[in-house]
């Protein structure tokens, strides 16, 4: 299997950081609050490791929006946050558009739209940097244990195999809402990604 070397990993982290900056900026516009982002984490892991990692990070019950993508990269993206905070996020998003008592009715749809915008902001940024295209399916919402969410949404990525895992944590400090965005790249994508990164590096003349 193809692995990324240190320079490729470093460049991917930097480029992913840019993409997530766009995603953070989109989220910030949506909720009219400052959004803080962590430094991206990039690693290779399999499904069991991944589920364990998400369990630890989220404390168990999560709500998530997932989107499959294809094109220059093949895989799955997830936006997740603790379920107890999801209504809070919806309230920030909709503000005066919906009466407070009706908020629950719109919870799932609002979170789908948040997920769609954030996930696509990150993907679009990567596609533009590499001068290529990535298309995404419609977003899917689910809620439950981390394992349930991953299982219910995972169609494209064969998680028995190793995946390239990219994660950024976000927080809306003022409202104490934390979550994370995860991109899982199918092994088939890694070769193509490595080639794109090499091409990008060669253009930089470094």
């Amino acid at each position, binding site marked *: 299997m193809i692995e990324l070397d240190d320079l490729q990993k470093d460049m991917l982290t930097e480029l992913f950081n840019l993409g997530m900056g*766009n995603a953070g900026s*989109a989220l910030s*516009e*949506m909720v009219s609050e400052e959004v803080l982002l962590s430094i991206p984490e990039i690693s290779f892991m399999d499904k069991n490791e991944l589920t364990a990692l998400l369990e630890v990070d989220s404390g168990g019950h999560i709500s998530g929006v997932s989107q499959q993508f294809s094109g220059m990269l093949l895989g799955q993206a997830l936006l997740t946050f603790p379920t107890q905070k999801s209504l809070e996020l919806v309230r920030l*998003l*909709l503000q*005066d*558009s*919906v009466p407070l008592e009706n908020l629950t009715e*719109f919870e799932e*749809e*609002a979170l*789908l*739209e948040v997920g*769609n*915008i954030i*996930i*696509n*902001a990150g*993907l*679009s940024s990567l*596609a*533009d940097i590499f001068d*290529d*295209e*990535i*298309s*995404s399916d*419609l977003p899917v919402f689910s809620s439950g244990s981390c394992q349930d969410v991953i299982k219910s949404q995972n169609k494209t990525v064969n998680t028995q195999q190793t995946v390239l895992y990219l994660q950024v944590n976000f927080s809306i400090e003022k409202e104490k809402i934390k979550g994370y965005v995860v991109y899982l790249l199918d092994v088939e994508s890694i070769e193509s990604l490595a080639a794109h990164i090499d091409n990008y590096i060669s253009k930089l003349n470094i």
Partner: protein
Amino acid sequence: MSDEKNVLIIDDSRVSRMMVKAIIKQHFPDAIITEAGNADETLALDIPDGLTHIICDYNMPGMDGLTLSQELKKSYPTTYITLLTANIQAATRHKAEDMGIHFTKKPVTEERILSILAKQGH
């Protein structure tokens, strides 16, 4: 220029449609607003005469928003048509521009919607 707004909003996200609608109504209380959740619903609609703007999402079940916008452009050549989308890739923007469709990135903000409404088709 007349200030009458007659807007068709097409988006599979009800929340997104609501947000666009709320901004339009706040600034143009007399605006005529028609909504659809996908291409099939749009093509089955009885659309009021004098459509000034079409605001169309890209990623929807069935026909995508760009193909739909291209179809609508044939029937509404003078209407200002905008693709309002989370897919903010240059490739998508170029495809839209090549078709004469305007491009605005999501998320929905007051500034972006007002900027669309300030423009007019030919």
